[in-house]
């Protein structure tokens, strides 16, 4: 315990089993105040289960868990008083209006009516829904419902906000609006803990993240650290014509072996539809490929992303 600042969330060897199925398989996590912390991983990696344990609504099977210095198994209500939760599926009260959803929710935290009223007005302004305050929730768009859910999660002025897949199912424009709002929250010093299977979301929002796969943590660090540790600076993506019965990307990979031998590519990943050349200099690698006589139908040189980190760590892509 050399930490100067006490962790808001601290897990050691945290395990969750459902019958014979192990959803979370012994993870260690420390989340510091004011940080935006992410759990990145594909569906079924154990992210949501971890979030539910942190949210004090799912008792751990084994291991140690402290949230805000308390034990969720004992102090559940006291912990939840100081959390804001944005679940994966919106669970607003569809029989109520937008404003009523916030006002009614605030009462569960034992807040005075006037306080809730003032905060609700402020939060509706924050999520840009003041003009919809009196509307029923039901007919709102997915993005708007999400924003109501986020406003509701903030009604108790939480120390930590848990966001489970905050933008899944939203169109790109709605996602950007949400990211911008979450970024503002982060700037106000609110601790954000989020799960996502979108690497761009993780890169945009997270100061630090863990990559989860099959209930375990495969790696952790800042997005930049993870990319530096597990990938190359650049990636050259090559697509070859896919003809029925013709050579697949794997066959072309063999042709690229000499490149790797000459140090132009550190690693070659074969995906069903394309080849990824991991390299320090993508343009140089591409020139070498063309000089080799290979003729990809398209090519793309880009910076490495967390998607590449995940691929390297697990051999699979994040979104199948």
């Amino acid at each position: 315990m050399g930490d100067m600042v006490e962790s808001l969330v601290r897990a050691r060897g945290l395990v969750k089993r459902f019958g014979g199925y192990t959803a979370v398989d012994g993870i260690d996590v420390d989340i510091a105040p004011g940080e935006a912390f992410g759990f990145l991983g594909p569906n079924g990696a154990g992210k949501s289960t971890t979030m539910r344990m942190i949210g004090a609504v799912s008792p751990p099977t084994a291991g140690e868990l402290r949230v805000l210095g308390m034990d969720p198994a004992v102090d559940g209500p006291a912990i939840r008083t100081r959390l804001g939760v944005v679940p994966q599926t919106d669970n607003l009260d569809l029989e109520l209006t937008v404003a009523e959803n916030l006002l009614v929710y605030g009462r569960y935290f034992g807040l005075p009516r006037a306080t809730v009223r003032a905060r609700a007005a402020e939060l509706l302004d924050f999520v840009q829904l003041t003009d919809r305050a009196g509307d029923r929730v039901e007919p709102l768009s997915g993005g708007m419902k999400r924003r109501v859910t986020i406003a509701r999660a903030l009604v108790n002025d939480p120390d930590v906000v848990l966001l489970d897949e905050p933008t899944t199912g939203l169109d790109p424009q709605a996602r950007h609006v949400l990211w911008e709002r979450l970024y503002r929250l982060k700037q106000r010093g609110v601790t954000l803990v989020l799960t996502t299977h979108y690497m761009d979301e993780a890169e945009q929002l997270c100061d630090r993240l863990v990559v989860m796969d099959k209930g375990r943590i495969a790696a952790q660090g800042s997005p930049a650290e993870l990319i530096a540790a597990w990938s190359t600076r650049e990636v050259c993506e090559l697509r070859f014509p896919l003809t029925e019965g013709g050579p697949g990307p794997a066959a072309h990979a063999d042709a690229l072996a000499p490149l790797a031998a000459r140090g132009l590519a550190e690693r070659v990943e074969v995906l069903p539809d394309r080849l990824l050349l991991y390299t320090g200099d993508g343009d140089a690698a591409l020139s070498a490929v063309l000089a080799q006589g290979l003729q990809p139908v398209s090519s793309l040189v880009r910076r490495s992303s967390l998607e590449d980190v995940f691929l390297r760590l697990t051999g699979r892509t994040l979104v199948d």
Partner: protein
Amino acid sequence: MPGPAAWSLFLQRLTAHRHYWRSSAIGSVLEPVLFLAAMGLVLGSLVDRGPGVPGGVGYLAFLAPGLLVAAAMQTATGESSYPVLGAIKWDRTYEALLATPARPVDLVAGHLLYVAFRVTSSAAAFLLVLLAFGAARSPLVVLTVPVALLTGLAFAAPVTALAARLEEDAAFAALQRFLLVPMFLFSGTFFPVEQLPAVLQGIARATPLWHGVTLARDLALGTVSAGPALLHVGYLLLWTAAGAVLAARALTRRLVR
């Protein structure tokens, strides 16, 4: 034991109810008017021309308090079946509430508080109709409202427990068809259970509805006595308490896992 979050849920449900209280209020008045007119007055005139119901009261006076309680059973069951499963599974509002300091036991208590409100207000409307029909024989008739409340809760609590265990809503239709409708017809609302064969009489007397109907009738007709009344109340409270405990347990198992 339930805490303050139960009250918050009660207020939440009340806020939702405000959006459609008019149609619900109209139903609470219209239904007793129709039933008491068709069965109490019209059918009753036939019954009263024959040997009539025991005790020498008119059929309307016999029927009305029974129907008041049977309506409470329907209201309470309706509020505790689909809406509870919906709050767990479809709209997931209970999930949202469990992210606050609220616990499953608070949700059960808050839900039952709301059912209590719904049953009491409908029973009060029914009582006004009953009085307007001149079906009361004793001032104690006002106590049929708390009896309706107790009977409503004796159904609401176990049905909530059932809803908390269900994956599909098909069981509610079966509950209605195979338990509630037979109970409604054979548990003393329309005729004394003494008319039934002995075996069926025993079954009828075991239902919470029979206890509620019998007590309400004794009050409305002024024939109540303390011993049996306490027994009826105790039996209804037993169903409520057992149902509430099972409901809290089922909700915990379902949502806190």
